[in-house]
């Protein structure tokens, strides 16, 4: 029995051997460019997810960045990914839902883009419908109320463009452009969008000191009887500040948007959305999947006294019949100060992320 296995191995090796014998037309290799993992991530959490079939390269990231900011991906060439994912807003926009190419607003708030390679479950979008960054990048281009184009057109435009074929050759060793390679390049760029230099991060590394107010806000966040935010939104040992898991945090008693439930078809998932990271909240208003809250004060008031009961509400939510745990004004102010200490101004101005 074992013998066929050896033969198989031999055949495999020999055939790969013979492939190698044909002279290479292209000796060029793109330059590997592993992610710069921040110390605070390295020390605390497991390695980011980089798919084997899409390693990070300098040329791939550069191409992905150009594509991300290029309106060529949209139907009438007026809208790029960056229209809804702008560097000044930690790669989201500032409207409750996003203004698409024809002025039609979708029903979801755009999402900030950072630390995406640490979404270990690789379920993207508010409802988890996108199963990898590569697959996600295919979606907005064809979405009629987002970029309203189609991939055949986009690939044609890229293929006849004066620069893109050469940039694809440098990134992927081929001048034949496909939507899959386009998505791979964009995903490589997105993985470089790393944010880990907030005041809180620097305090953790001994480079800054939290004010007593920020420190008390952290205690509110970590206190089961008060905020109890940490069971869903991370903690100092999980500096992603999210679990990337789907919960119903009590926004509504009935759902106009089923969230995860529409994706899985399971009514027990209705009203569940992905916990967002609490990094960079200073730049990402408005908040929640539909952008219903325009300030952090509104968000905190909601968790404190605005909870709505429903059959799928997460059991981690407390005193729902009273709307929440009724934080004192002082605790609310402190919690807000702590949340803002998770914002990272250097992420907005990082020259690598500008058009």
């Amino acid at each position, binding site marked *: 029995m*074992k013998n066929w296995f050896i033969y198989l191995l031999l055949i495999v*090796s*020999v055939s*790969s051997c013979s492939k190698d014998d044909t002279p290479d037309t292209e000796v060029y290799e793109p330059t590997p460019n592993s992610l710069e993992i921040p110390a605070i991530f390295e020390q605390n959490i*497991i390695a980011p997810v980089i798919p084997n079939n899409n390693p990070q390269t300098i040329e791939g990231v550069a191409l992905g960045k150009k594509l991300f900011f290029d309106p060529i991906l949209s139907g009438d060439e007026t809208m790029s990914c960056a229209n809804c994912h702008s560097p000044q807003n930690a790669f989201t926009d500032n409207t409750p839902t996003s203004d698409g190419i024809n002025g039609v607003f979708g029903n979801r708030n755009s999402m900030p883009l950072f630390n995406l390679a640490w979404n270990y479950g690789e379920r993207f979008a508010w409802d988890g419908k996108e199963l990898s960054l590569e697959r996600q990048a295919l979606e907005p281009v064809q979405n009629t109320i987002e970029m309203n184009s189609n991939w055949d057109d986009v690939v044609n435009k890229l293929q006849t463009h004066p620069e893109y074929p050469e940039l694809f050759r440098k990134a992927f060793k081929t001048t034949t452009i496909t939507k899959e390679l386009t998505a791979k390049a964009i995903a490589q760029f997105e993985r470089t969008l790393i944010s880990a230099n907030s005041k809180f991060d620097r305090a953790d590394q001994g480079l800054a000191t939290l004010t007593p107010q920020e420190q008390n806000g952290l205690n509110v966040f970590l206190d089961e*009887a008060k905020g109890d935010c940490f069971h869903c939104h991370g*903690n100092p*040992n999980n500096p992603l500040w999210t679990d990337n898991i789907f919960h119903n945090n009590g926004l509504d008693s009935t759902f106009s948007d089923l969230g995860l439930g529409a994706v899985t078809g399971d009514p027990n998932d209705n009203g569940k959305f992905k916990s967002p990271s609490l990094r960079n909240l200073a730049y990402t208003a408005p908040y929640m999947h539909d952008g219903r809250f325009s300030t952090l004060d509104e968000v905190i008031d909601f968790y404190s006294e605005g909870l709505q009961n429903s059959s799928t509400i*997460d059991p981690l939510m407390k005193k729902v019949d009273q709307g929440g745990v009724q934080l004192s004004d002082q605790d609310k102010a402190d919690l807000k100060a702590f949340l803002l200490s998770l914002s990272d101004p250097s992420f907005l101005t990082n020259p690598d992320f500008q058009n």
Partner: protein
Amino acid sequence: MKKIFALLIISAITFTSCSDDNDDNLKTKTEAKTSFNFTHNWDDTAIAGSDFENTQYTNANGEMITMTRLRYIISDVTFTKANGESTTIEGYKLVDVTNDDLNYNPEMKIPTGAYTSVSFTYGLKHEDNIDGAYTDLNSASFNVPMAALGGGYHYMQFDGKYTNSTVTDAPFNYHHIRAVNAGMPPVFPDQPTFITVDLGAMTISDDITIEVKMNVAEWFKNPNTWDLNVLNQVLMPNANAQLLMNQNGQNVFGLGTVTQ
């Protein structure tokens, strides 16, 4: 060149694994791999991932409960011989029942032989319960807050809802941690709350798979009839609740099927 080298290595590996295999048939093993699979039941009714948020169970106090999330740590599986000699597989497994992550396959092999006891720690011993020390548990947000509760990790996170004559679908968070009197600084009572579970004697002559059963109903039953109307949420800073959980946990685990 590279390919030839790879070919040589592959052939070498194949041939050695071949001879290994032949050996198996000839002589008895001196070392065995162990694997553990964790199964869950409610007083002998099997619990599957699909029962979460669906199936109602009645606890000892008469509440109807549904489970939302159940995950817990087991660590330091230890094999002890009659002469007292023991082998411990240092390490832990986060069993995540909600997500069907139910198998623990440690790398380390153990010597074959007759063991008078196979045991493990439910939770983490104090010397292993080090704040922030395990990146995979941090990534799973299994931490216990440091300042007020002393840090380290949850032993178990069991969330769900209960219904009785006065409330409908009220939440509970049966979170088990090292007992602590919350405060700045927190104060730990002397009694540990992790549990050493003895699965009994086993003679191990070959790679072995051990089923570990958890009867979830036991957490509410014995010796303390758990009253969810009183003990439902905010149990982490409640040292007394943590000690009660430890008492109720004593008979939660049992040995299931063993195959080798």
